[in-house]
Structure formats: C-alpha cells, structure tokens
C-alpha cells in the first residue's frame, strides 16, 4: 500500500488561464450563465477592494480578502440549489452573496456587528461563517445527518482552506460522511497558504484530494481559477449527494493573491515572484478573455456592468455605514432564549456602569 495517488481528473479545467477552452463546456453552462457569472466575479472583486479600503480608513475591522479566489466561491454558489444548506468558513463572501446574503451584511460582520448573520430567504438556514478552522465541517456533517434523517433530497456544501486539512475535524467529518453515506460535499479552497504556512509545509500528501481515500469517499481536484470547473465539480458532487450516493471531497487549486487578512503582511513570508506568477492564472481575466473571444462581451458591456456593480457596492457600503447601532444590552438578550436571572442582575450592573461612564465623560 505504498502507491501514491496523483491522478488528474477528467474535468479538471474547462477554460484555461489564457481564456482558451480546454474541453467542451458542460451542458449546464450557457452564454447567459457565463455572463452572469462574470458579473458576479467582478462584483465580488469590487466589494473586496472596497472592504479593504474601509478597513484601511478605520471604517471596518479586520477583513479577509478573497482576491483571486472569486471563482471558487462563485462556482460553488451557483452549483447549489435553494434548499441545499451552505456551511461556510470566513473566506466565502462569494458563495454567501450568491446564496442571498446581502453585501452590507458581509461588511457589517467584518465591522463587528452580529446582525450581519441574520440571513433571510434561501440562506435562512445556512450557517454563519465559522472562524475556528475546520469546525464548520463537523457542523456540516450534522446538517447532513439532519437532512438525511428528514428523508429530504437536499445536500450540504461546506468549505475550508488548505490549512484546515491538517485539523482533526476535517478528517472526523469526512470519515462520518463516508461511513454514513451523508449528502455532503466538502470543498477545499486550496489557496496555497495558511497565513504564512505554505501548502507544502501543511501535509506530506501529494494532493489534498487524496485525503478522501482515508474516509472511503471520492476525491476530486479542479482548477479553482476556472469558475466553470469549480461549478461543474460541485454541481456533480451535489447531484450525487442529493441522490443518496455519498459524499465528495473537492480540492480547488487557486491562490491567495492578497494578504491573509488586513492584519497580515504577506511580503514577510512569501516571494513576490510567486504572487506575480499566480496573477497570470487568476479567474476574472480569463473569463473576460473567453467571453470577448466568443463575441459574448465587449467594452460597452464591460463599462455598463462595471458602473452597475460599483453602484451596487456603493449602496451596500452606504447601508453598512448608516446602520444604527445595536441597543447597549443587545449583547445580553440573545445569549439564551430568555434572559437568565444572573443576566438580569448583570444588566442592571451594565446600566449602572454605562451611567457612570456617561457622567465621567460628561464632566
């Protein structure tokens, strides 16, 4: 049992980094779909840039950019059905947006306001993004158990980073998904870095996809910069899951073009040449090129779209900045369904303290 497992999957890539078609597009992908998809990628990139700017100007707190990984989130989001459940990690702005989470809520969360997690509509049962690495994957397994035990034909999509594949929860959840044949798809955003730790220092396995073998489930690698490839892999895996045919692990290979978060400085630990090379593979440009070459796109369309996207992002920023603050005791009123006796007593202390602070600041 010494054989290593490196097998390139058939549908690894559809549109390559030069915008060239590598193989026929899947039937599910139409020209309209591709144009809508392109707008989504641009929108997310625009939001992302804005969010970083808000943080830099003190209008938002720490923010994890998804620059370069827009295709992973967008492709995944587009492969989900409304009644599927999404269990994200923190770099899933794109998927969450596709699921109907508002842009202003995404900003609100990184601005430090829990109300950003009050998702509505399709996302109403989705989980908020998870910060402790890989924890979301066991939650997703639990969600899958719930769906399965209801006899529904829904599936769960969960995501994680390459670093997350080192954590126990990653394996424990996939192992359960394997032995219980859960309707679960786990998508790794392999952006090559876990803060300062490169993929090569995270594990000795040649691929992350082969970790599926430990759980007895299928593992697939895709070009994470090709939104079609990501979409198709997730789409197929979700279909399989919904049909009761078990779980899949998908490794989407991409690159974190930004710092880890706004609190990070990636120049400390990685080579600028590596980043430069990665820019040549990024997902937005290649789709634009492809659309142009297919005569599905031109600069007028581009200008109109950019304006529209900017407007949408600006509106979200305005909403974010103008959202009135929470009530001072709101951090106490949702801890339990009803406030407990100790919390009622402590609210009285809070109000006393707030009064003291007022007076002291007043004089």
């Amino acid at each position, binding site marked *: 049992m010494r054989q290593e497992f490196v097998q390139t999957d058939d549908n690894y890539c559809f549109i390559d980094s030069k915008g060239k078609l590598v193989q026929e597009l899947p039937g599910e992908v139409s020209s309209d779909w591709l144009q809508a998809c392109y707008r989504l990628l641009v929108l997310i990139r625009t939001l992302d840039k804005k969010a970083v700017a808000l943080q830099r100007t003190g209008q938002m707190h720490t923010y994890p950019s998804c620059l370069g990984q827009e295709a992973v989130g967008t492709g995944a989001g587009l492969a989900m059905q409304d009644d599927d*459940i999404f*269990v994200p990690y923190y770099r899933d702005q794109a998927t969450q947006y596709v699921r109907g989470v508002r842009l202003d809520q995404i900003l609100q969360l990184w601005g430090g306001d*829990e*109300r950003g*997690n*009050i*998702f509505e509509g399709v996302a*109403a*049962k989705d*989980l*908020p993004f*998870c910060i*402790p690495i890989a*924890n979301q*994957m*066991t*939650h*997703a*397994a*639990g*969600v*899958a*158990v*719930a*769906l399965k*035990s209801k006899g529904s034909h829904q599936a769960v999509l969960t995501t994680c980073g390459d670093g997350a594949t080192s954590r*126990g*929860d990653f394996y*424990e*959840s996939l*192992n*359960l998904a394997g*032995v219980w044949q859960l309707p679960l798809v786990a998508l790794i955003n392999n952006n090559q870095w876990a803060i300062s730790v490169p993929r090569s220092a995270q594990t000795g396995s040649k691929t992350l996809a082969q970790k599926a073998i430990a759980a007895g489930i299928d593992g697939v690698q895709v070009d994470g910069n090709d939104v079609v490839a990501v979409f198709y892999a997730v789409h197929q895996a979700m279909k399989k899951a919904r049909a009761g045919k078990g779980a899949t692990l998908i490794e989407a290979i991409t690159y974190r073009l930004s710092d880890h978060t706004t609190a990070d400085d990636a120049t400390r630990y990685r080579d600028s040449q590596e980043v430069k090379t990665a820019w040549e593979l990024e997902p937005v440009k290649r789709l634009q090129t492809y659309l142009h070459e297919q005569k599905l796109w031109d600069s007028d369309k581009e200008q109109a779209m950019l304006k529209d996207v900017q407007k949408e992002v600006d509106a979200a920023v305005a909403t974010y900045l103008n959202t009135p603050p929470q009530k001072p005791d*709101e*951090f106490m009123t*949702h*801890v*339990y*369904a009803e406030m*407990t*006796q*100790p*919390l009622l007593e402590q609210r009285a202390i809070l109000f006393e303290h707030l009064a003291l602070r007022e007076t002291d600041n007043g004089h």
Partner: protein
Amino acid sequence: MATKNAAEKMPKEVTEQVSERVSGKASGKAPEKSSRKTSEKTTHTVTLVEAVNLALRRALTDHPEVVILGEDVGTNGGVFRATEGLKRDFGFKRVLDTPLAESLIAGMAVGMATQGMRPVAEIQFMGFIFAAVEHMVCHAARMRNRTRGRLHCPLVIRAPFGGGIHAPEHHSESTEALFAHIPGLRVVIPSSPTRAYGLLLSAIQDPDPVLFLEPKRIYRMVRQEVEDDGQGLPLDVCFTLRQGEHITLVSWGAMIHETMLAAKQLAAEDGIEAEVIDVASISPLDMDTIIRSVEKTGRCVIIQEAARSGGIGSEISARLGEDALMYLQAPVQRVTGYDTPMPYSKNEGLYMPCVEDIIGTVKKVMEDV
C-alpha cells in the same frame, strides 16, 4: 409540555421541603411546547440511570426531532445502560452509534440542532469530554447570540461524572466548573431519580444547549417512584431537600447523598438542624434560594467533589460574601476534593469528601461566633 411545579416532583426518600422560591419560579418557567401530545402516564420504581432511560424514552416518544447519539449508545445501550433498549424500540435512525470521535459528536450535534433537530449526545465519561469543548464553547453556546436568534442549538450533552466506582484513570472526573463559566450553556446535575427524569426532560425541551451531568456513583444507589408523565422540572432553581435553621449545606450531584446523611446524623446526634440545598442547575445559578437560606441560618458549608480551587463552591461562597455578608455568623466553609488529579482507583477514597468530613466541618462552623 408544561414544567411541573417543582414541589410535586420532590424525591420520596428525602424530606419533601421545597422553598417557596422554587415553587414560585417553577410555574413561570415552562420549557418550550412539545410538538406532540404527551402520552399516557405510568409510574415506575426506578434508579437514577433508569430514570434517565425513562426520560430519553419519553422524549423520543413525544418529540420526533429528538435523536440520541454517541459511542455505544445503540445496540449496547450505553456502557451504563442509560440508553438500553432505545435503539430496539425507536430504530437506528433515532439512536445513532457514532464513530469514536468526541469533537465530531459535539460538532454534528451543533449542526443537527441548527436544522431543528434535538440531538441528545452522550459522552461516554466526562473525562473524555475535552475534545467536545471547542464545539460546546465556540458554537453550541454561541449560535443563538452569533445569529441574533436566527439559529439556535437545542442540544443536550449527557455525561456520567464523578468518582467512587473504582474506574480507570479519566473515568472519575468532576470538571463541571469549567462549563459553568461558559456563557450560553446550561449545566444541570440531578441527584435523584425524580430529578434525573424531570431535569433531563426539561434539558431536552430547553431551546438552548444543556450539559447534563449524571452522578454515576449514585446511578443505582436508590430507587424512587417516578411518574412518567413527560413533565419537566425547572432548570434554573435550586431544590431545598431539607429545612433547618442552624446551618445551610449546599451541594449537588452524588455528594448530596453524603450531605443528607450528614444532616440526618447532625440532627440526631447533635441537635443541629441543617438546611440542605441541591443546587441542581449549577449554571445559570439560582443564588436567591441559597442567599435566602443563609439569611435564615447565618452559616453555610458547601460540599463539592471537584478540585477545590475555582469550583462551583467558590462562586457560591463569593456570592454569599458579596450579597449576604451581614447575615454571616461564621465564614462560609467548603468541603471539597483537592487540587490534584483524581487518584487512581485504589486511593480515590482519600480524595472524595465523606460524611465525617462534612460533620466535622459543620461542627467547627457552628462553634464559630
């Protein structure tokens, strides 16, 4: 499914005194309504572990969203038989034998709970709960607050705890205080079959996560008549098991047994009438009942099996010092385990508080003026 007045559910083997406070509060604290009508009442004479089984059975019957999960809870019925017969009677879809992974068990319970299920997960021994802590602290206890009420985690984690059964290392811990310090969790500990039944039902019906710790040393110590009527007991009150005016004894879990014996002996041999309070829900803590008692008695001894420093006893003692200082005729004292790991089984008796320790301490406190 209403919460029964606490007084009605008091165990038979102890003095049936319930403070007004308890009865008063209980009526106002009905857990969430059941999604089904409760079935017929029957009365069973059961041990504590059988009462747990009865409550689980009742919950599985009355609430289709209840699911039992854990290691060996299925065919084997749990290593203490708490889930005995449940898989047979409710099927493998309601009673899930999981792989051996506590982080997974807690994490999947969180996921299940967010989707409207009511998972009741067993951790085989409290000494193996640590891998579940991340999910309990970071997710179960916070999902409601994090989402401002959009999602919540109505889950129960059950675990047998405490020493005294000569089990191997890690099978005898009492680390309840760790969880009582976590906002968003409830921590509930029964000390009799009736309270096991009523509190577990309320824990399952509660809309928030509950750690339900079962004192395994007294799993089979006494039998009580338990009415299987689907009625819960309130989760946020202490139970006054014995009234007395000279001193207040506060305890929870298996130590209630030693505490009640000490109280009886003190009354018989020394004419000292101790009020005995079973804290039962160690978080959130019902200090009102305890303070009211100490206002009356002026003296208090707290009995705790857990390590001495930083235990529940410390919180109670601190609160008494802050809120009842002028009533205290003597310093509050604690009879506790020690700041050591639980000794291996041969020597666990050295570690565990016993009746003599309690009586000796009470007498010292009574002498204090």
